[in-house]
């Protein structure tokens, strides 16, 4: 079809504009469309954004009139929301889309000859993983777009060391010529601007070739292990030392071999463990604990990863078979006892770190099966001495239980998606935690200089990652302060001291106007909210209320759609019956619906099927 006209609707412009400053990304997705038909038509807007992003705005402009978004406390917004939902008049949704993304969908009825502009803004802090920051965009326009552009500007005060951009759908030189990437000093730029002809899947086709992942990766110069940046009284401290040797690990793999793991899952687990064994370093100690209804161990105690032991371990792994039910409690307690004993009896190096990596695909149903009790037992046994990482394989499990248990034991949980690459996901997770360079890391500032500090102590600093601490200066006129980062290395204890000249640091960021002014304050708010929400997962009663209140206040103040807030876009003359909604699902939403009946009432699942396009728009963007 000429100029990408589909059913009378022309999407004539789609632009993704990203500005990244000091790892903080501010993204604006703008789509412009016009209804060329002789009758009112429904126009859809789809955008996929990272789960780690917070929507900060969504506006709709019809024939030049803009309807801005308003952030409201979720409960307040919900009243409007429920009323509209009850009448089946929802139109906007955000739902989980794959592993990394959430899909925002909205549609509006547009009169004949009218134009509409959708603008979605979201922000996220890019986290460093395996030596790179990654910005991930999903591209899938429904039709050819006359002006299609992705424009990414990066500004990093430390200087950019590498920058790359890749698109899974770039398969030929023609489309490759639409992509340009460049960096110099502190600035980087990526532009992807395919013409209409370049977008066609074949010279005479009307469907688009653009369908897939668009990924920008970069890293910064690290002449110094730490960098402190200050703007308008807020500071952020990035810490990622290089050149340190890896701290030896004592790792116990606790593997679910219950009946539900049968078939591809157990095969993928075996494959992943065999690959992981190839990466285990000779100074590491390891053991395997398998659990079904019973708990069995490979060795009675941890053994060093000598070539002979690794060979024996591989033979053991190949012999793993599925059987029986699921006894998580006893398996974990056995692993904890094993690590404690190894340390008490000095069987493992004094300067080493102990971790448990548990993989399960289901809920406990043998032995102690009450999640709360298992958590209590594990917490009391570990006593904060080492980290527990929980990997939830597939969907048929209580992920929030695994996550809570990991978080309260200095670890983290990760979902392993049941897919052809599950073995690579497992291996990838191991790689992330395989190379601790420092343990018990604490970032310290003078009490009288800093306030509202984000998390400043970490069990591990992993090679290729980065510790980020943000806060507020007590006195904006102070001249300097000192930041100490203390940690235990493989061979020695290290204290990195950073003298921060406040005026110099502010001056160095004069160029920040290049991107946007208050990004460090927003970065601080983003990080604070993210950490409050995480803490909230394990908090009880009053503490939980306090954490919720703090996170809510910040979400409202900084206009973030978080799990506590909703964004409503209202056309002033409309009544409340005419509205559309979007929802931000959390990890919980990916669990088993049958075990979480409340979820079946969430708008993202209940009302999408009953969607009726409203005559006039009323929009609502929500976080789970």
């Amino acid at each position, binding site marked *: 079809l000429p100029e990408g006209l589909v059913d009378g609707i022309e999407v004539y412009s789609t632009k993704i504009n990203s500005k990244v400053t000091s790892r903080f990304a501010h993204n604006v997705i703008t789509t412009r469309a016009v209804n060329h038909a002789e009758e009112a038509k429904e126009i859809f807007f789809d955008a996929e954004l990272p789960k780690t992003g917070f929507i900060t705005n969504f506006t709709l402009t019809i024939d030049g009139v803009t309807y801005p978004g308003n952030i409201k406390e979720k409960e307040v917004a919900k009243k409007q929301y429920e009323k509209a939902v009850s009448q089946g008049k929802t139109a906007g949704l955000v739902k989980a889309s794959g592993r990394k993304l959430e899909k925002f969908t909205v549609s509006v009825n547009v009169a004949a000859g009218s134009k509409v502009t959708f603008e979605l803004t979201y922000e996220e802090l890019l986290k460093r993983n395996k030596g790179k920051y990654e910005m991930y965009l999903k591209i899938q326009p429904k039709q050819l777009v006359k002006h299609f552009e992705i424009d990414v500007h990066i500004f990093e005060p430390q200087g950019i060391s590498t920058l790359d951009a890749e698109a899974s759908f770039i398969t030929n030189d023609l489309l490759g010529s639409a992509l340009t990437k460049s960096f110099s000093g502190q600035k980087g730029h990526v532009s992807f601007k395919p013409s209409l002809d370049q977008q066609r899947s074949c010279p005479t086709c009307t469907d688009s070739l653009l369908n897939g992942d668009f990924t920008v990766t970069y890293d910064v110069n690290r002449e110094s292990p730490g960098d402190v940046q200050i703007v308008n009284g807020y500071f952020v401290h990035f810490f990622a030392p290089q050149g340190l040797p890896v701290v030896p690990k004592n790792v116990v793999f606790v593997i679910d071999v219950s009946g539900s793991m049968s078939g591809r899952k157990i095969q993928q687990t075996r494959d992943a463990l065999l690959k992981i064994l190839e990466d285990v370093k000779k100074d590491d100690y390891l053991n395997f604990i398998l659990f079904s209804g019973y708990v069995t161990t490979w060795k009675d105690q941890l053994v060093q990863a000598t070539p002979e032991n690794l060979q024996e371990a591989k033979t053991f792994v190949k012999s793993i078979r599925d059987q029986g039910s699921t006894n998580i409690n006893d398996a974990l307690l056995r692993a904890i006892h094993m690590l404690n004993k190894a340390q008490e009896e000095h069987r493992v190096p004094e300067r080493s770190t102990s971790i448990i990596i548990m993989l399960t695909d289901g809920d406990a149903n043998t032995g102690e099966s009450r999640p709360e009790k298992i958590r209590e037992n594990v917490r009391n046994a570990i006593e904060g001495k080492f980290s527990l990482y929980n990997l939830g394989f597939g969907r048929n499990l209580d992920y929030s239980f695994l996550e809570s248990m990991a978080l309260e034991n200095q670890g983290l949980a990760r979902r392993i998606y049941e897919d052809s690459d599950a073995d690579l996901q497992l291996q990838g997770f191991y790689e992330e935690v395989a190379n601790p360079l420092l343990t018990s890391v604490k970032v310290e500032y003078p009490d009288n200089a800093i306030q509202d500090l984000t998390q400043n102590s970490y069990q591990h600093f992993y090679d290729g990652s980065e510790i980020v601490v943000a806060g507020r200066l007590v006195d904006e006129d102070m001249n300097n302060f000192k930041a100490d980062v203390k940690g235990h290395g493989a061979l020695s204890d*290290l204290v990195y001291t950073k003298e921060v000249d406040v005026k110099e640091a502010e001056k160095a960021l004069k160029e920040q106007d290049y991107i946007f002014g208050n990004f460090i304050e927003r970065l601080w708010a983003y990080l604070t909210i993210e950490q409050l929400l995480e803490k909230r997962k394990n908090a009880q009663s009053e503490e939980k209320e306090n954490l919720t209140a703090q996170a809510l206040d910040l979400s409202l103040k900084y206009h973030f759609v978080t799990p506590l807030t909703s964004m409503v876009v209202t056309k002033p003359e409309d009544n409340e019956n005419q509205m559309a909604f979007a929802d931000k699902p959390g990890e919980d939403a990916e669990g088993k619906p049958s075990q979480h009946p409340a979820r079946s009432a969430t708008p993202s699942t209940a009302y999408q099927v009953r969607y009726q396009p409203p005559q006039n728009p009323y929009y609502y963007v929500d976080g789970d």
Partner: protein
Amino acid sequence: PHFIIQVPEKDDAICFNIDEDPGTVLSLIQDPVTGLSVNGQIIGDKRDSSNSNTRKTYFGKLGITNAQMDFRIEVTTEKITLWNGVVPTTLSWLDTVTVTQDGLSVTINRKKNMVISFGRGVTFVVVLHRVWKKHDFLGFYVVDSHRMSAQTHGLLGQFFHPFDFEVSDVHPGSDPTKPDAIMVVKNHQLTVTRGSQKDYRKDTSVGMKVNCWFVHNNGEGLIDGVHTDYIVSNLL
């Protein structure tokens, strides 16, 4: 590089230069009892002069080894690498960092100096002299050596033991501002010149003037043997 030997008993100092080709490694300290050794590698200055009389040389790399602890440090003007056994830890002069482990402490003070202590009783300071890119050089100071053995040797190490010298017959030299004199040291009679060198420990840019008696000809007569006896093959 120039050497300053302070002699507290005399409240005076002796200086000498060692002129060798860039790349040469000199033994500065060698203690067979504690296992500590310090070697320095020479670099030339920015001017590419083939005339050894005008060419200035400095230390561009230092290697510090503690054989008993199986510990080594290589300090260059770019970076600092610590080895514990075969495992390296790399740090930068842009860091301010303290590394501590049993019996050892290494502190790098961003762009200025680093302090290396082996327990109580042995402390060295390395100063980074920032000249211009790719032509920085290093200074090495011994601030405490009292735990080192009497068998310590090397261009600096030989002076850790008490020694005596006498200066007499101070008379005008070729430079009217720098009188010559006769020095008797280690059973040698030498002609020395009053001059000054700088101690950069406290102020790495300006330094502190130290008056000393300068011994000519690569410290000949002052040092045990001749300076080429101190040339070693490896930094570490």
